């Protein structure tokens, strides 16, 4: 493949790249991976997957996405579509390895740390997610990261809808507690600078 073609791909919109990929152009799909691979791997890490495992699942999800690229109609974003595939694949992997049941039970290990807001430092989402129990982290990441509805998340996790809703609610409360001090600290900083 010539450099000229690669630079042409770089200037194309995701939807156009998907059309090229659907015609079997693997370099077009490679450009999509270059653009969105990190976001997909990042989501899996946020769901609780370790580095190498997240990369494996992301790779499987992207290969599956290439196989099913004709199904992508451009109704949402390409990244969102692959994230949903990746999230489901990660859950299937957890189920296969019998780890999902452990994660889905109520976790209380990190509850004590949940309110320990660090107002002096900017706390990013990755840090904030660490205070959530594995189940809360999974549910919040699936609903707000992969864009699944509560119902879809419940179905994918094989949990009652009410359980998923309560995991999400508790997760959001912890995240708000964790992220709010940073928010107010930033606002404070802006005021003092102004």
């Amino acid at each position: 493949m010539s450099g000229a073609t690669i630079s042409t791909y770089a200037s194309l919109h995701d939807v156009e790249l998907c059309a090229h990929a659907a015609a079997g152009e693997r370099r077009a799909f490679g450009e999509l991976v270059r653009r969105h691979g990190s976001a997909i791997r990042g989501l899996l890490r946020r769901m609780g997957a370790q580095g190498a495992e997240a990369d494996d699942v992301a790779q499987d999800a992207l290969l599956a996405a290439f196989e099913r690229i004709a199904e992508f109609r451009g109704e949402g974003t390409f990244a969102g579509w692959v994230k949903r595939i990746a999230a489901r694949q990660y859950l299937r992997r957890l189920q296969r390895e019998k780890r999902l049941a452990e994660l889905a039970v109520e976790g209380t290990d990190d509850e004590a740390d949940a309110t320990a807001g660090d107002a002096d430092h900017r706390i990013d989402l990755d840090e904030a997610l660490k205070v959530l129990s594995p189940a809360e982290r999974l549910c919040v990441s699936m609903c707000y990261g992969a864009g699944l509805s509560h119902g879809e998340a419940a179905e994918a996790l094989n949990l009652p809808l009410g359980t998923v809703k309560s995991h999400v609610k508790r997760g959001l409360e912890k995240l708000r507690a964790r992220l709010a001090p940073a928010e107010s600290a930033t606002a404070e900083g802006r005021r003092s600078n102004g």
Partner: protein
Amino acid sequence: MAELDFERRLERLFMDAPELPDAAAFAQRIERKLDRGWNMRRWLIGAAGLTGGVIGASQLFMSNLFERVETAEQSARLVGQGLSRVSPSTDMVSALSGGYGVWVAVALALAAMAYFASRLIEEM
């Protein structure tokens, strides 16, 4: 309202994923995997075509072909004679319905084999 704002903010934070340092290497790995899968698929299709061609040609040769050709030629001659009485232009019909038809089938099978063999060579 504050709840909704926080949820929007959370969605934005999830979307705002940092670029990982090995992003390019990861993309190359995926491309290599796709190339490998694609080549494998073409090899399998080529091999299936070649196998089918070999089986088809061998079936033609093994199924008393020459005996059938003789019988077919005799039948064709008879049909041709009959048809020539009906219509003067029956050469083509008798050629295809008789022994020539079998040879045409063999030639087509060989052409198919040659095509799949050329695809395989191209892949190599």
